[in-house]
């Protein structure tokens, strides 16, 4: 056996379950997903409605709280999107899907979620979508499995 370079490759996994407290505003957001199949946003000055809700106005830094929560959606329109041909292990869907910024009805900001459109040719900006709810909801963003086209059967 020689000391000549020889290729050695091993696989490593770094995994960590990170638990974070969500605070009063996102706490209400996740509770509403779980218990009421409702999507909440924050009413901010200037007629803006931000989803998911926030504890501070991203423009002015002014504090916003649970009094500023409003229900939005559940339907909305795709603003922008990117198609995923080969879903990875931790993607929400096992088949090709679109990541989309969805402007939910009543909201002024985009809400990032997956759209199960079947094929890329069905995706377009402006398309109407609605949430598909998970049957066993636990209070996390995956309580919405994905969005699907409103004209789906």
């Amino acid at each position: 056996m020689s000391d000549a370079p020889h290729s050695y490759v091993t696989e490593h996994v770094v995994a960590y379950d990170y638990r974070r407290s969500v605070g009063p505003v996102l706490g209400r957001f996740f509770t509403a997903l779980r218990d009421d199949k409702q999507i909440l946003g924050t009413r901010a000055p200037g007629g803006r409605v931000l989803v998911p809700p926030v504890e501070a106005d991203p423009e002015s830094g002014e504090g916003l709280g649970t009094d500023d929560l409003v229900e939005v959606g559940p339907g909305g329109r795709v603003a922008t999107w990117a198609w995923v041909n080969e879903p990875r292990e931790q993607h929400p869907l096992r088949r090709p899907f679109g990541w989309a910024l969805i402007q939910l009805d009543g909201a002024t900001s985009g809400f990032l979620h997956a759209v199960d459109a079947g094929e890329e040719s069905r995706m377009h900006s402006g398309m109407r979508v609605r949430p598909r709810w998970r049957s066993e909801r636990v209070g996390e963003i995956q309580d919405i499995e994905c969005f699907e086209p409103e004209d789906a059967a």
Partner: protein
Amino acid sequence: MSEEKQPVKSITTPTRLVYQWAATGTQAAFLNRIARGELIGQRCPECRNVYCPHSGNCPRCGVATTETVDVQDRGTIITFCIVRVPSENIDLKLPYCAANILLDGSDMPFTALLDECEPADVRAGMRVEAVWRPKEEWSNTFENIRYFRPTGEPDVPVEKLGAWV
């Protein structure tokens, strides 16, 4: 909607990264040699320190190490830690001793398991040697060494451990 449910106070976000580690040429040389039951290190051309296992460069001088030298499979405990708490993915009987060992011929200690020794008897300066797996189980891995154990030689006086303590 359920009346008994508590409001959501936290969420769990799993983080998982799968990556491949590829040995550099000099690291591969180390793995080739350990498959034969031999340990090698590399010497820094500037400060003359020997590193084992080596990464291919000197962490002090920042230059490539090129000269390969033999390192013994025995050495001296510099520091140690008696581990009494279990940890995921570490399948060892508690308590166990993780020892920082300076191998003879090397200038940089590395961490290895110490066994055949009661936790209360471990000390800095203790002389130890590698216990290898049976030869037929050897492959290109540091796991060819099962653990280190005391040799019974007289301790190295702590003042002779120099900058390490």
